[in-house]
Protein backbone atom coordinates (compact mmCIF):
# COMPACT_ATOMS: atom_id res chain seq x y z
CA UNK A 1 0.00 0.00 0.00
CA UNK A 2 2.67 2.42 1.13
CA UNK A 3 4.86 1.33 -1.73
CA UNK A 4 1.99 1.93 -4.12
CA UNK A 5 1.46 5.59 -3.17
CA UNK A 6 5.19 6.25 -3.36
CA UNK A 7 5.24 4.82 -6.87
CA UNK A 8 2.25 6.88 -7.80
CA UNK A 9 3.93 9.98 -6.47
CA UNK A 10 7.06 9.27 -8.43
CA UNK A 11 4.97 8.71 -11.54
CA UNK A 12 3.13 11.97 -10.90
CA UNK A 13 6.39 13.92 -10.55
CA UNK A 14 7.63 12.36 -13.75
CA UNK A 15 4.40 13.24 -15.47
CA UNK A 16 4.38 16.83 -14.20
CA UNK A 17 7.72 17.51 -15.81
CA UNK A 18 5.95 17.12 -19.13
CA UNK A 19 3.72 20.06 -18.24
CA UNK A 20 6.75 22.35 -18.11
CA UNK A 21 8.03 20.82 -21.33
CA UNK A 22 4.71 21.45 -23.10
CA UNK A 23 4.83 25.11 -22.05
CA UNK A 24 8.33 25.57 -23.40
CA UNK A 25 7.44 26.69 -26.96
CA UNK A 26 4.96 29.21 -25.54
CA UNK A 27 7.43 30.53 -22.97
CA UNK A 28 10.31 30.84 -25.45
CA UNK A 29 8.16 32.66 -28.03
CA UNK A 30 6.60 34.83 -25.35
CA UNK A 31 9.99 35.92 -24.00
CA UNK A 32 11.33 36.82 -27.45
CA UNK A 33 8.28 38.35 -29.16
CA UNK A 34 6.21 39.74 -26.26
CA UNK A 35 8.21 40.38 -23.11
CA UNK A 36 11.46 41.53 -24.70
CA UNK A 37 9.74 44.05 -27.04
CA UNK A 38 7.88 45.67 -24.12
CA UNK A 39 11.07 45.92 -22.05
CA UNK A 40 12.97 47.25 -25.06
CA UNK A 41 10.26 49.89 -25.66
CA UNK A 42 10.56 50.88 -22.01
CA UNK A 43 14.32 51.15 -22.27
CA UNK A 44 14.09 53.17 -25.50
CA UNK A 45 11.82 55.66 -23.77
CA UNK A 46 14.87 56.89 -21.82
CA UNK A 47 17.06 57.20 -24.90
CA UNK A 48 17.70 59.65 -27.64
CA UNK A 49 17.50 57.13 -30.47
CA UNK A 50 16.59 57.31 -34.14
CA UNK A 51 15.64 53.64 -34.45
CA UNK A 52 19.14 52.90 -35.73
CA UNK A 53 22.66 54.01 -34.90
CA UNK A 54 23.69 55.75 -31.68
CA UNK A 55 21.74 55.40 -28.42
CA UNK A 56 22.20 58.14 -25.82
CA UNK A 57 20.70 57.95 -22.34
CA UNK A 58 18.77 61.17 -21.62
CA UNK A 59 16.85 60.25 -18.46
CA UNK A 60 13.27 61.52 -18.30
CA UNK A 61 13.63 64.11 -21.08
CA UNK A 62 11.32 62.24 -23.46
CA UNK A 63 8.63 62.09 -20.79
CA UNK A 64 8.80 65.78 -19.87
CA UNK A 65 8.68 66.59 -23.58
CA UNK A 66 5.64 64.33 -24.05
CA UNK A 67 3.73 66.05 -21.25
CA UNK A 68 4.38 69.48 -22.78
CA UNK A 69 3.80 68.53 -26.42
CA UNK A 70 0.69 70.43 -27.61
CA UNK A 71 0.46 68.33 -30.80
CA UNK A 72 0.27 65.14 -28.74
CA UNK A 73 -2.40 66.78 -26.58
CA UNK A 74 -4.41 67.70 -29.68
CA UNK A 75 -4.02 64.20 -31.08
CA UNK A 76 -5.21 62.77 -27.78
CA UNK A 77 -8.25 65.07 -27.75
CA UNK A 78 -9.09 64.02 -31.33
CA UNK A 79 -8.92 60.40 -30.22
CA UNK A 80 -11.23 61.10 -27.28
CA UNK A 81 -13.77 62.92 -29.46
CA UNK A 82 -13.95 60.13 -32.03
CA UNK A 83 -14.02 57.40 -29.41
CA UNK A 84 -16.65 59.30 -27.37
CA UNK A 85 -19.09 59.45 -30.28
CA UNK A 86 -18.26 55.85 -31.11
CA UNK A 87 -18.91 54.39 -27.63
CA UNK A 88 -22.13 56.35 -27.04
CA UNK A 89 -23.59 55.09 -30.33
CA UNK A 90 -22.15 51.61 -30.00
CA UNK A 91 -23.23 50.93 -26.43
CA UNK A 92 -26.54 52.79 -26.83
CA UNK A 93 -27.51 50.77 -29.88
CA UNK A 94 -26.35 47.49 -28.31
CA UNK A 95 -28.36 48.22 -25.16
CA UNK A 96 -31.44 49.15 -27.17
CA UNK A 97 -31.21 45.88 -29.10
CA UNK A 98 -30.70 43.92 -25.89
CA UNK A 99 -33.86 45.48 -24.42
CA UNK A 100 -35.74 44.69 -27.62
CA UNK A 101 -34.76 41.05 -27.79
CA UNK A 102 -35.47 40.47 -24.11
CA UNK A 103 -38.82 42.20 -24.03
CA UNK A 104 -41.42 39.90 -22.56
CA UNK A 105 -44.34 41.58 -24.29
CA UNK A 106 -43.16 41.58 -27.89
CA UNK A 107 -40.96 38.45 -27.89
CA UNK A 108 -38.95 39.34 -30.99
CA UNK A 109 -37.81 36.44 -33.17
CA UNK A 110 -34.82 35.90 -35.44
CA UNK A 111 -32.15 36.66 -32.85
CA UNK A 112 -29.43 34.49 -34.39
CA UNK A 113 -29.96 35.88 -37.90
CA UNK A 114 -29.97 39.52 -36.79
CA UNK A 115 -27.04 38.89 -34.45
CA UNK A 116 -25.01 37.50 -37.35
CA UNK A 117 -25.92 40.41 -39.65
CA UNK A 118 -25.11 43.02 -36.99
CA UNK A 119 -21.78 41.37 -36.38
CA UNK A 120 -20.77 41.23 -40.05
CA UNK A 121 -19.02 44.67 -40.22
CA UNK A 122 -16.71 43.61 -37.40
CA UNK A 123 -15.19 40.81 -39.46
CA UNK A 124 -13.95 42.96 -42.27
CA UNK A 125 -10.39 44.25 -42.34
CA UNK A 126 -10.09 47.86 -41.19
CA UNK A 127 -8.18 48.65 -44.38
CA UNK A 128 -11.09 47.48 -46.50
CA UNK A 129 -13.63 49.29 -44.30
CA UNK A 130 -11.62 52.51 -44.54
CA UNK A 131 -11.26 52.33 -48.32
CA UNK A 132 -14.86 51.32 -48.77
CA UNK A 133 -16.15 54.34 -46.83
CA UNK A 134 -13.57 56.66 -48.33
CA UNK A 135 -14.85 55.68 -51.75
CA UNK A 136 -18.54 55.64 -50.80
CA UNK A 137 -18.24 59.05 -49.10
CA UNK A 138 -16.35 60.74 -51.92
CA UNK A 139 -17.51 64.32 -52.44
CA UNK A 140 -18.02 64.21 -56.20
CA UNK A 141 -18.51 60.58 -57.12
CA UNK A 142 -19.33 58.89 -53.84
CA UNK A 143 -22.38 56.66 -53.78
CA UNK A 144 -23.64 58.07 -50.48
CA UNK A 145 -23.80 61.63 -51.78
CA UNK A 146 -25.49 60.39 -54.95
CA UNK A 147 -28.04 58.60 -52.79
CA UNK A 148 -28.66 61.62 -50.56
CA UNK A 149 -29.10 63.85 -53.62
CA UNK A 150 -31.48 61.42 -55.26
CA UNK A 151 -33.63 61.29 -52.12
CA UNK A 152 -33.49 65.12 -52.01
CA UNK A 153 -32.11 65.03 -48.47
CA UNK A 154 -29.35 67.45 -49.40
CA UNK A 155 -29.17 70.12 -52.08
CA UNK A 156 -25.46 69.88 -52.77
CA UNK A 157 -23.03 67.02 -52.11
CA UNK A 158 -21.42 67.11 -48.65
CA UNK A 159 -17.65 66.97 -48.52
CA UNK A 160 -17.65 64.62 -45.53
CA UNK A 161 -13.96 63.86 -45.44
CA UNK A 162 -12.66 67.37 -45.97
CA UNK A 163 -14.19 69.13 -42.97
CA UNK A 164 -12.70 68.39 -39.53
CA UNK A 165 -16.08 68.00 -37.81
CA UNK A 166 -17.70 65.66 -40.32
CA UNK A 167 -14.47 63.71 -40.85
CA UNK A 168 -14.21 62.99 -37.12
CA UNK A 169 -17.91 62.14 -36.98
CA UNK A 170 -17.42 59.69 -39.87
CA UNK A 171 -14.64 57.89 -37.97
CA UNK A 172 -16.81 57.71 -34.83
CA UNK A 173 -19.84 56.42 -36.71
CA UNK A 174 -17.83 53.89 -38.73
CA UNK A 175 -16.34 52.65 -35.43
CA UNK A 176 -19.81 52.24 -33.94
CA UNK A 177 -20.97 50.53 -37.12
CA UNK A 178 -18.08 48.07 -36.82
CA UNK A 179 -18.47 47.35 -33.11
CA UNK A 180 -22.12 47.59 -32.01
CA UNK A 181 -22.81 43.99 -33.08
CA UNK A 182 -19.94 42.82 -30.92
CA UNK A 183 -21.24 44.72 -27.87
CA UNK A 184 -24.76 43.44 -28.55
CA UNK A 185 -23.54 39.82 -28.50
CA UNK A 186 -21.74 40.40 -25.20
CA UNK A 187 -24.74 42.10 -23.58
CA UNK A 188 -27.03 39.29 -24.76
CA UNK A 189 -24.63 36.73 -23.30
CA UNK A 190 -24.77 38.72 -20.09
CA UNK A 191 -28.58 38.65 -19.99
CA UNK A 192 -28.60 34.93 -20.66
CA UNK A 193 -26.26 34.52 -17.71
CA UNK A 194 -28.79 36.12 -15.34
CA UNK A 195 -30.60 33.60 -13.16
CA UNK A 196 -34.08 33.12 -14.56
CA UNK A 197 -35.62 32.83 -11.10
CA UNK A 198 -35.15 36.57 -10.62
CA UNK A 199 -37.42 37.36 -13.55
CA UNK A 200 -40.00 34.80 -12.48
CA UNK A 201 -40.08 36.02 -8.89
CA UNK A 202 -40.44 39.62 -10.04
CA UNK A 203 -43.27 38.71 -12.42
CA UNK A 204 -45.10 36.84 -9.67
CA UNK A 205 -44.70 39.88 -7.44
CA UNK A 206 -46.42 41.89 -10.17
CA UNK A 207 -43.47 43.93 -11.42
CA UNK A 208 -43.94 45.43 -14.89
CA UNK A 209 -41.59 44.96 -17.84
CA UNK A 210 -39.89 48.29 -17.32
CA UNK A 211 -39.48 47.82 -13.60
CA UNK A 212 -37.91 44.43 -14.19
CA UNK A 213 -35.58 45.91 -16.76
CA UNK A 214 -34.56 48.89 -14.63
CA UNK A 215 -34.30 47.04 -11.32
CA UNK A 216 -33.02 43.60 -12.35
CA UNK A 217 -31.64 43.39 -15.88
CA UNK A 218 -29.77 46.68 -16.00
CA UNK A 219 -28.01 46.40 -12.61
CA UNK A 220 -26.99 42.81 -13.32
CA UNK A 221 -25.70 43.80 -16.75
CA UNK A 222 -23.41 46.45 -15.26
CA UNK A 223 -20.31 44.20 -15.03
CA UNK A 224 -20.60 43.31 -18.72
CA UNK A 225 -21.24 46.92 -19.72
CA UNK A 226 -18.16 47.85 -17.73
CA UNK A 227 -16.19 45.16 -19.54
CA UNK A 228 -17.42 46.38 -22.93
CA UNK A 229 -16.63 50.01 -22.07
CA UNK A 230 -13.15 49.27 -20.79
CA UNK A 231 -12.17 47.02 -23.69
CA UNK A 232 -13.58 49.62 -26.07
CA UNK A 233 -11.63 52.33 -24.26
CA UNK A 234 -8.39 50.38 -24.46
CA UNK A 235 -9.03 49.73 -28.16
CA UNK A 236 -10.44 53.21 -28.82
CA UNK A 237 -7.54 55.17 -27.34
CA UNK A 238 -5.32 53.17 -29.67
CA UNK A 239 -7.45 54.21 -32.64
CA UNK A 240 -5.20 54.27 -35.67
CA UNK A 241 -5.97 52.39 -38.87
CA UNK A 242 -9.36 53.84 -39.85
CA UNK A 243 -8.39 57.52 -39.47
CA UNK A 244 -4.93 56.79 -40.91
CA UNK A 245 -6.32 55.22 -44.06
CA UNK A 246 -9.44 57.34 -44.45
CA UNK A 247 -7.25 60.45 -44.46
CA UNK A 248 -4.89 58.88 -46.99
CA UNK A 249 -2.15 58.46 -44.30
CA UNK A 250 -2.01 62.26 -43.78
CA UNK A 251 -4.31 62.88 -40.81
CA UNK A 252 -6.10 65.63 -42.74
CA UNK A 253 -8.32 67.71 -42.84
CA UNK A 254 -6.12 70.03 -40.72
CA UNK A 255 -4.67 67.32 -38.31
CA UNK A 256 -8.24 66.48 -37.20
CA UNK A 257 -7.76 62.75 -37.88
CA UNK A 258 -4.38 62.63 -36.16
CA UNK A 259 -4.90 60.26 -33.22
CA UNK A 260 -2.50 59.61 -30.34
CA UNK A 261 -1.18 56.35 -31.77
CA UNK A 262 -1.05 57.87 -35.26
CA UNK A 263 1.14 60.65 -33.82
CA UNK A 264 3.29 58.08 -32.04
CA UNK A 265 3.87 56.05 -35.23
CA UNK A 266 4.54 59.22 -37.17
CA UNK A 267 7.29 60.06 -34.64
CA UNK A 268 8.72 56.54 -34.71
CA UNK A 269 8.68 55.72 -38.40
CA UNK A 270 8.57 59.03 -40.30
CA UNK A 271 10.38 61.44 -38.01
CA UNK A 272 12.90 58.83 -36.74
CA UNK A 273 12.38 59.75 -33.08
CA UNK A 274 12.09 56.22 -31.74
CA UNK A 275 12.99 57.15 -28.15
CA UNK A 276 10.36 59.88 -27.95
CA UNK A 277 7.75 57.60 -29.57
CA UNK A 278 8.51 54.94 -26.95
CA UNK A 279 7.90 57.49 -24.18
CA UNK A 280 4.61 58.47 -25.85
CA UNK A 281 3.59 54.80 -25.86
CA UNK A 282 4.10 54.57 -22.10
CA UNK A 283 2.39 57.90 -21.41
CA UNK A 284 -0.59 56.64 -23.41
CA UNK A 285 -0.52 53.37 -21.51
CA UNK A 286 -0.68 55.22 -18.16
CA UNK A 287 -3.54 57.39 -19.41
CA UNK A 288 -5.43 54.25 -20.52
CA UNK A 289 -4.79 52.64 -17.13
CA UNK A 290 -6.09 55.73 -15.30
CA UNK A 291 -9.19 55.99 -17.51
CA UNK A 292 -9.89 52.28 -17.05
CA UNK A 293 -9.61 52.64 -13.28
CA UNK A 294 -11.94 55.66 -13.39
CA UNK A 295 -14.49 53.85 -15.54
CA UNK A 296 -14.28 50.93 -13.14
CA UNK A 297 -14.85 53.17 -10.13
CA UNK A 298 -17.64 55.14 -11.76
CA UNK A 299 -19.65 52.14 -12.89
CA UNK A 300 -19.02 50.07 -9.80
CA UNK A 301 -19.80 53.05 -7.56
CA UNK A 302 -23.23 53.34 -9.14
CA UNK A 303 -23.89 49.75 -8.27
CA UNK A 304 -23.59 50.49 -4.57
CA UNK A 305 -26.37 53.05 -4.74
CA UNK A 306 -28.95 50.57 -6.04
Amino acid sequence: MKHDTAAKKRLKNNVDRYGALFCLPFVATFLVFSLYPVLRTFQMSFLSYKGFGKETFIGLDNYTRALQDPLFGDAFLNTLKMWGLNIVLQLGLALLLTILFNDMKYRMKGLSLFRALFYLPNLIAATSVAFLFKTLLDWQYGTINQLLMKLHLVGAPIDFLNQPGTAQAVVGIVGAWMWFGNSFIMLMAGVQGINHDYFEAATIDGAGRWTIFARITLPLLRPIMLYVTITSLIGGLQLFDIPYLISGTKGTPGRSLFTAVFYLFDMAFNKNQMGYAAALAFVLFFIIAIFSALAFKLMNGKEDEV
Partner: protein
Amino acid sequence: MNTAKLHTNIVKALLYLFLIALAVLCFIPFLLMIVNATRGGSEIMKGFSLIPGTALAENWTKVMSNLDLPRGFLNSLFLAVCNTLLVSYFSALTAYALAFYSFKGNKLLFTVMLVFMMVPAQLSILGFYNLCTSLGLINSYLPLILPSIASPATVFFLRQYILSVLPKSILEAPRIDGASELLIFHKIVLPIMAPGIATMAIGGFVGSWNSYLVPMLLINKPEKFPLPVMVASLSAVRDITTNLGAVYLVIAVSVVPIMIAFCFFSRYIISGISAGSVKE
Protein backbone atom coordinates in the same frame (compact mmCIF):
# COMPACT_ATOMS: atom_id res chain seq x y z
CA MET B 1 -58.96 43.85 -25.79
CA ASN B 2 -58.83 43.64 -29.55
CA THR B 3 -57.52 47.17 -30.02
CA ALA B 4 -54.82 46.43 -27.45
CA LYS B 5 -53.76 43.42 -29.47
CA LEU B 6 -53.79 45.44 -32.67
CA HIS B 7 -51.70 48.06 -30.96
CA THR B 8 -49.18 45.41 -29.88
CA ASN B 9 -48.95 44.07 -33.40
CA ILE B 10 -48.37 47.50 -34.89
CA VAL B 11 -45.58 48.22 -32.43
CA LYS B 12 -44.10 44.82 -33.14
CA ALA B 13 -44.15 45.46 -36.89
CA LEU B 14 -42.42 48.80 -36.35
CA LEU B 15 -39.78 47.14 -34.19
CA TYR B 16 -39.09 44.55 -36.89
CA LEU B 17 -38.88 47.34 -39.42
CA PHE B 18 -36.24 48.99 -37.25
CA LEU B 19 -34.27 45.74 -36.98
CA ILE B 20 -34.44 45.16 -40.71
CA ALA B 21 -33.35 48.74 -41.41
CA LEU B 22 -30.37 48.26 -39.11
CA ALA B 23 -29.49 44.95 -40.77
CA VAL B 24 -29.67 46.64 -44.18
CA LEU B 25 -27.39 49.37 -42.87
CA CYS B 26 -24.88 46.69 -41.89
CA PHE B 27 -25.10 44.93 -45.18
CA ILE B 28 -25.62 47.62 -47.80
CA PRO B 29 -22.05 48.94 -47.95
CA PHE B 30 -20.95 45.43 -48.91
CA LEU B 31 -23.74 45.11 -51.45
CA LEU B 32 -22.76 48.45 -53.00
CA MET B 33 -19.16 47.27 -53.02
CA ILE B 34 -20.03 44.10 -54.92
CA VAL B 35 -22.35 45.90 -57.34
CA ASN B 36 -19.85 48.68 -57.99
CA ALA B 37 -17.09 46.13 -58.61
CA THR B 38 -19.06 45.08 -61.69
CA ARG B 39 -19.64 48.61 -62.99
CA GLY B 40 -17.39 50.81 -65.05
CA GLY B 41 -15.63 53.84 -63.57
CA SER B 42 -17.64 56.43 -65.51
CA GLU B 43 -20.88 54.62 -64.75
CA ILE B 44 -20.17 54.80 -61.00
CA MET B 45 -19.37 58.50 -61.27
CA LYS B 46 -22.69 59.17 -62.99
CA GLY B 47 -24.91 57.73 -60.33
CA PHE B 48 -25.91 55.20 -57.77
CA SER B 49 -27.41 51.83 -58.69
CA LEU B 50 -28.13 48.47 -57.16
CA ILE B 51 -28.15 46.69 -60.52
CA PRO B 52 -24.87 44.96 -61.41
CA GLY B 53 -23.06 46.34 -64.43
CA THR B 54 -21.11 44.60 -67.17
CA ALA B 55 -17.61 45.90 -66.56
CA LEU B 56 -16.38 43.15 -64.23
CA ALA B 57 -13.93 41.70 -66.76
CA GLU B 58 -12.69 45.15 -67.72
CA ASN B 59 -12.16 46.09 -64.06
CA TRP B 60 -10.31 42.83 -63.49
CA THR B 61 -7.90 43.49 -66.38
CA LYS B 62 -7.31 46.97 -65.02
CA VAL B 63 -6.54 45.62 -61.55
CA MET B 64 -4.35 42.82 -62.85
CA SER B 65 -2.20 45.08 -65.00
CA ASN B 66 -1.30 47.12 -61.91
CA LEU B 67 -1.49 44.84 -58.88
CA ASP B 68 -0.68 41.17 -58.50
CA LEU B 69 -3.92 40.54 -56.64
CA PRO B 70 -3.82 36.69 -56.79
CA ARG B 71 -0.34 36.86 -55.31
CA GLY B 72 -1.61 39.03 -52.45
CA PHE B 73 -4.46 36.61 -51.97
CA LEU B 74 -2.09 33.64 -51.75
CA ASN B 75 0.25 35.52 -49.41
CA SER B 76 -2.66 36.30 -47.08
CA LEU B 77 -3.90 32.73 -47.29
CA PHE B 78 -0.46 31.32 -46.50
CA LEU B 79 0.00 33.61 -43.50
CA ALA B 80 -3.51 32.95 -42.22
CA VAL B 81 -3.15 29.16 -42.49
CA CYS B 82 0.23 29.14 -40.72
CA ASN B 83 -1.02 31.44 -37.98
CA THR B 84 -4.18 29.41 -37.48
CA LEU B 85 -2.28 26.13 -37.19
CA LEU B 86 0.30 27.53 -34.79
CA VAL B 87 -2.14 29.38 -32.58
CA SER B 88 -4.47 26.37 -32.39
CA TYR B 89 -1.88 23.70 -31.68
CA PHE B 90 0.40 25.55 -29.29
CA SER B 91 -2.39 27.32 -27.40
CA ALA B 92 -4.11 23.97 -26.86
CA LEU B 93 -0.85 22.37 -25.73
CA THR B 94 -0.05 25.21 -23.32
CA ALA B 95 -3.62 25.35 -22.02
CA TYR B 96 -3.59 21.60 -21.38
CA ALA B 97 -0.27 21.82 -19.56
CA LEU B 98 -1.47 24.72 -17.40
CA ALA B 99 -4.74 23.00 -16.55
CA PHE B 100 -3.58 19.44 -15.88
CA TYR B 101 0.03 19.46 -14.72
CA SER B 102 1.26 20.95 -11.47
CA PHE B 103 4.81 21.90 -12.37
CA LYS B 104 6.95 24.64 -10.91
CA GLY B 105 6.08 28.03 -12.40
CA ASN B 106 2.57 27.07 -13.49
CA LYS B 107 0.88 29.78 -11.40
CA LEU B 108 3.48 32.38 -12.34
CA LEU B 109 3.07 31.71 -16.04
CA PHE B 110 -0.70 31.98 -15.76
CA THR B 111 -0.47 35.30 -13.89
CA VAL B 112 2.01 36.76 -16.40
CA MET B 113 -0.37 35.74 -19.19
CA LEU B 114 -3.30 37.49 -17.54
CA VAL B 115 -1.23 40.66 -17.16
CA PHE B 116 -0.15 40.56 -20.81
CA MET B 117 -3.72 40.16 -22.00
CA MET B 118 -4.20 43.73 -20.76
CA VAL B 119 -1.02 45.26 -22.20
CA PRO B 120 -1.96 47.34 -25.24
CA ALA B 121 -0.21 46.49 -28.51
CA GLN B 122 1.48 49.84 -28.91
CA LEU B 123 3.70 49.12 -25.89
CA SER B 124 5.39 46.25 -27.66
CA ILE B 125 5.22 47.28 -31.29
CA LEU B 126 8.18 49.71 -31.24
CA GLY B 127 10.41 47.20 -29.46
CA PHE B 128 9.12 44.45 -31.75
CA TYR B 129 9.97 46.47 -34.85
CA ASN B 130 13.36 47.31 -33.40
CA LEU B 131 14.01 43.62 -32.67
CA CYS B 132 13.06 42.62 -36.21
CA THR B 133 15.28 45.25 -37.84
CA SER B 134 18.27 44.26 -35.72
CA LEU B 135 17.71 40.56 -36.49
CA GLY B 136 17.42 41.35 -40.20
CA LEU B 137 13.83 40.11 -40.35
CA ILE B 138 12.48 42.90 -42.56
CA ASN B 139 10.58 41.32 -45.48
CA SER B 140 10.62 37.96 -43.70
CA TYR B 141 7.38 36.18 -42.84
CA LEU B 142 8.84 34.75 -39.62
CA PRO B 143 7.87 37.70 -37.39
CA LEU B 144 4.38 37.60 -38.89
CA ILE B 145 3.95 33.90 -38.07
CA LEU B 146 6.04 32.82 -35.08
CA PRO B 147 4.43 35.10 -32.44
CA SER B 148 1.22 33.06 -32.90
CA ILE B 149 2.83 30.34 -30.78
CA ALA B 150 2.38 32.59 -27.74
CA SER B 151 -1.16 34.00 -27.67
CA PRO B 152 -2.12 34.60 -24.02
CA ALA B 153 -5.81 35.33 -24.70
CA THR B 154 -6.27 32.08 -26.65
CA VAL B 155 -4.47 30.04 -24.01
CA PHE B 156 -6.63 31.63 -21.33
CA PHE B 157 -9.84 30.78 -23.17
CA LEU B 158 -8.76 27.20 -23.90
CA ARG B 159 -7.61 26.64 -20.32
CA GLN B 160 -11.06 27.59 -19.02
CA TYR B 161 -12.59 25.47 -21.77
CA ILE B 162 -10.58 22.32 -21.12
CA LEU B 163 -11.26 22.49 -17.39
CA SER B 164 -14.97 22.36 -18.15
CA VAL B 165 -14.90 19.58 -20.76
CA LEU B 166 -12.11 17.20 -19.78
CA PRO B 167 -12.40 15.12 -16.60
CA LYS B 168 -8.98 14.32 -15.17
CA SER B 169 -9.89 10.65 -14.74
CA ILE B 170 -9.88 10.14 -18.52
CA LEU B 171 -6.11 10.51 -18.49
CA GLU B 172 -5.48 7.75 -15.93
CA ALA B 173 -6.17 4.64 -18.02
CA PRO B 174 -3.88 5.46 -20.95
CA ARG B 175 -1.16 6.52 -18.50
CA ILE B 176 -1.29 3.15 -16.75
CA ASP B 177 -1.17 1.50 -20.17
CA GLY B 178 2.09 3.33 -20.70
CA ALA B 179 1.02 5.80 -23.39
CA SER B 180 3.41 8.74 -23.69
CA GLU B 181 2.19 12.13 -22.52
CA LEU B 182 2.39 13.66 -25.99
CA LEU B 183 0.45 10.73 -27.44
CA ILE B 184 -2.27 11.24 -24.82
CA PHE B 185 -2.45 14.89 -25.81
CA HIS B 186 -2.72 14.10 -29.51
CA LYS B 187 -5.11 11.16 -29.33
CA ILE B 188 -7.35 12.04 -26.39
CA VAL B 189 -7.09 15.68 -25.36
CA LEU B 190 -7.04 17.36 -28.79
CA PRO B 191 -10.22 15.64 -30.09
CA ILE B 192 -12.11 16.52 -26.91
CA MET B 193 -10.97 20.14 -27.16
CA ALA B 194 -11.83 20.39 -30.87
CA PRO B 195 -14.96 22.60 -30.57
CA GLY B 196 -13.16 25.11 -28.37
CA ILE B 197 -10.13 25.07 -30.64
CA ALA B 198 -12.34 25.61 -33.68
CA THR B 199 -13.78 28.78 -32.13
CA MET B 200 -10.32 30.16 -31.49
CA ALA B 201 -8.99 28.96 -34.87
CA ILE B 202 -11.63 30.87 -36.81
CA GLY B 203 -10.92 33.99 -34.79
CA GLY B 204 -7.21 33.48 -35.45
CA PHE B 205 -7.77 33.06 -39.17
CA VAL B 206 -9.88 36.20 -39.47
CA GLY B 207 -7.43 38.16 -37.32
CA SER B 208 -4.49 37.13 -39.48
CA TRP B 209 -6.38 37.71 -42.74
CA ASN B 210 -7.25 41.24 -41.63
CA SER B 211 -3.99 42.15 -39.95
CA TYR B 212 -2.48 45.32 -41.35
CA LEU B 213 -0.19 47.20 -38.98
CA VAL B 214 2.66 44.72 -38.45
CA PRO B 215 2.87 43.57 -42.10
CA MET B 216 2.77 47.22 -43.18
CA LEU B 217 5.75 47.99 -40.95
CA LEU B 218 7.80 44.89 -41.75
CA ILE B 219 7.09 44.13 -45.40
CA ASN B 220 8.11 46.55 -48.11
CA LYS B 221 8.52 44.27 -51.13
CA PRO B 222 5.24 44.46 -53.11
CA GLU B 223 5.41 40.78 -54.10
CA LYS B 224 5.30 39.87 -50.41
CA PHE B 225 2.35 42.14 -49.53
CA PRO B 226 -0.63 40.43 -47.93
CA LEU B 227 -4.03 41.71 -49.10
CA PRO B 228 -4.67 44.44 -46.49
CA VAL B 229 -1.31 46.06 -47.24
CA MET B 230 -2.05 45.75 -50.95
CA VAL B 231 -5.45 47.38 -50.44
CA ALA B 232 -3.85 50.17 -48.44
CA SER B 233 -1.32 50.79 -51.21
CA LEU B 234 -4.18 51.40 -53.63
CA SER B 235 -4.14 55.19 -53.38
CA ALA B 236 -0.61 55.16 -54.75
CA VAL B 237 -1.64 53.23 -57.88
CA ARG B 238 -2.79 55.93 -60.28
CA ASP B 239 -4.21 53.69 -63.00
CA ILE B 240 -6.59 52.04 -60.58
CA THR B 241 -7.72 55.07 -58.63
CA THR B 242 -8.88 56.65 -61.86
CA ASN B 243 -11.32 53.76 -62.22
CA LEU B 244 -13.52 53.44 -59.15
CA GLY B 245 -14.87 50.09 -60.35
CA ALA B 246 -11.40 48.61 -60.06
CA VAL B 247 -10.99 50.06 -56.55
CA TYR B 248 -14.22 48.40 -55.45
CA LEU B 249 -13.11 45.14 -57.06
CA VAL B 250 -9.85 45.07 -55.08
CA ILE B 251 -11.74 45.68 -51.84
CA ALA B 252 -14.29 43.01 -52.75
CA VAL B 253 -11.58 40.42 -53.32
CA SER B 254 -10.26 41.05 -49.81
CA VAL B 255 -13.69 41.00 -48.18
CA VAL B 256 -15.73 38.30 -49.92
CA PRO B 257 -13.75 35.25 -48.64
CA ILE B 258 -14.35 36.35 -45.06
CA MET B 259 -18.05 36.89 -45.77
CA ILE B 260 -18.33 33.39 -47.25
CA ALA B 261 -16.50 31.90 -44.27
CA PHE B 262 -18.84 33.78 -41.97
CA CYS B 263 -21.89 32.21 -43.63
CA PHE B 264 -20.60 28.79 -42.63
CA PHE B 265 -19.01 29.50 -39.27
CA SER B 266 -21.06 32.33 -37.78
CA ARG B 267 -22.16 30.14 -34.88
CA TYR B 268 -18.56 29.41 -33.85
CA ILE B 269 -17.50 33.00 -34.31
CA ILE B 270 -20.33 34.36 -32.18
CA SER B 271 -19.83 31.83 -29.40
CA GLY B 272 -16.16 32.81 -29.37
CA ILE B 273 -16.99 36.46 -28.69
CA SER B 274 -19.33 35.90 -25.80
CA ALA B 275 -17.01 33.24 -24.38
CA GLY B 276 -14.41 35.89 -23.78
CA SER B 277 -16.75 38.15 -21.86
CA VAL B 278 -18.42 35.78 -19.44
CA LYS B 279 -15.75 34.80 -16.97
CA GLU B 280 -16.32 33.19 -13.63
